[in-house]
């Protein structure tokens, strides 16, 4: 009856939504990046500490719908301890998966939870909710590479804002 609803709100997603990971504040973060989808009202802050090329710690605080919160929580869990390059690869796969593009999902533990986001594809208007954390993180990484620690402008996944 509500199979597609259960596809989107999978148990893994609801678990991340109910108890999001990475909420602990990160007072000495090297990068802090804000994201916002004005039409939903979803707001997110992604902060991380760096050691050379590695994201040593990640903080995610998302105020929004179940999908954006769960996606942010999964991000926090996945990218901690990864290199920039690895994070970029993962976020590209997540984006393609959400947009329904051809992509091979690696058979590794990182994608055990992340692949639950696939169900969002059936709800086109919610894809941007799932993307927000990832776009905000990537924006933060680019800022860091460019030499700035704080991004002044909030990232968004709403194209027409």
């Amino acid at each position, binding site marked *: *009856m509500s199979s597609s609803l259960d596809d989107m709100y999978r148990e893994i997603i609801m678990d991340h939504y*109910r108890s999001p990971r990475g909420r602990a504040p990160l007072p000495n973060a090297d990068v802090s990046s804000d994201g916002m989808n*004005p*039409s939903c*009202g979803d707001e997110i802050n992604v902060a991380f500490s760096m050691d050379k090329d590695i994201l040593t710690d990640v903080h995610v605080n998302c105020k929004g719908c*179940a999908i954006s919160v769960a996606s942010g929580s999964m991000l926090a869990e996945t990218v901690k301890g990864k290199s920039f390059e690895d994070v970029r690869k993962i976020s590209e796969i997540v984006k393609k998966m959400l947009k329904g593009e051809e992509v091979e999902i690696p058979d590794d533990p990182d994608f055990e939870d992340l692949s639950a986001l696939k169900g969002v594809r059936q709800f086109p208007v919610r894809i941007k909710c799932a993307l927000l954390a990832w776009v905000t993180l990537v924006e933060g990484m680019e800022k860091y590479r460019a030499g700035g620690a704080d991004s002044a402008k909030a990232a968004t996944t709403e194209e027409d804002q």
Partner: protein
Amino acid sequence: MPTDTKNSSQPAGRPSSELNVDLIKADFPILEEKVNGHRLVYLDSAASSQKPQEVVHALSQYYRHMHSNIHRGLHTLAERATVAYEKSRQHVADFIGGVEPEEVIFNSGTTEAINLVARTWGEANINEGDEIVVTEMEHHANFVPWFMLAQRKKAVIRKLPITVCGHLDLSEIDSIIGPRTKLVAITHMSNVLGTINPIQEIAALAKKHGALVLGDGAQAAPHLPINVRDLGVDFYAFSAHKMMGPTGLGLLYGRRELLEAMPPYKFGGEMISKVSFDEVTFAELPHKFEAGTPNIADVVTFDAALTYLERVGMNNARQHEIDLTGYTIEKLNSLNGLEIQGPQEVEQRGGAISFTDPTIHPHDISTFLDSRGIAIRAGHHCAQPLMRAMGKVATARASLYIYNDRSDVDALVEALVEMRKYFGL
């Protein structure tokens, strides 16, 4: 078919509405749709109403029997279409309180109707330092055109704020509407809060200072008996698709002397009187504001929508809305922690009911309800300044119309209870 006849055989304890909603529901074929395996419960009429079969039929009849371009054609179909088009204009004029048909301008929607006034009357009459008063509860359509005009003209936007209960806060109105005020742009009924604003009082004050009043009737015209002269407004804008009519048709009422003095909005065919390489003169009202081939089919079809509403009776429609809104508010209040935005007093509000759950985001609410066949709206409802004033980023909104009854509201409330279990919060 709905009728105005009083149904005196209603059992005690039933709503006092004079509408037979079962009969009305039967007029709307789309309500037979199954959505995600459930009966469609359509609670999104504030976004757009559904259409009765006779309106759907009227549209195809138009194309089947009378379609042609209007006004300049000399053949029989052109004559038929022109007569039907102008008959619809007369009908609109009657429906809003008996104005002159030349005071009714057809365009694409409330948004365009307001833009028309801002681009013509506004350009010609707003100057540096002039003040335009808007309320905090305006839809972007009745805010952004004035904001942009004020920017172009170095004019000032003044805000009529709202109270915590979702009424206009009129305590400071004498310092907000004054001699510098040129225009008061105000919604007749809020699309988020449902609040019915005291336009008459505000228009009287505006008039004292020589200011004009534009009423945004997008939400009010489908639900209340409207008399624009009694309201005291100079302009009144509304949309056909929210009141049983087709999409893509907007209505602008303007007082004749204002419309006559205003420059045209768009230039082209139909809106001219004489054209040479030396000179162009413009057509009389209302054609001056209807350049190009208009939305003939939808204008003609709207006649049928108005006939339908009149047969139901706007007073009956309003009474039904009061009853059902009261029932909905009572039911929603029974859900622990659910917060209703806007007035609780049914006499002072319409049936657009915004609410928030303490933990579940409006988009999750909407997605869940959709899985149960229930259509509501979630988001900022094109009213971001109002959202900010309420301290919300988004709300869920259920909105009622004459084809809704208590069973629809019960379905909503049951689904909300189920939703809370589903999200395990």
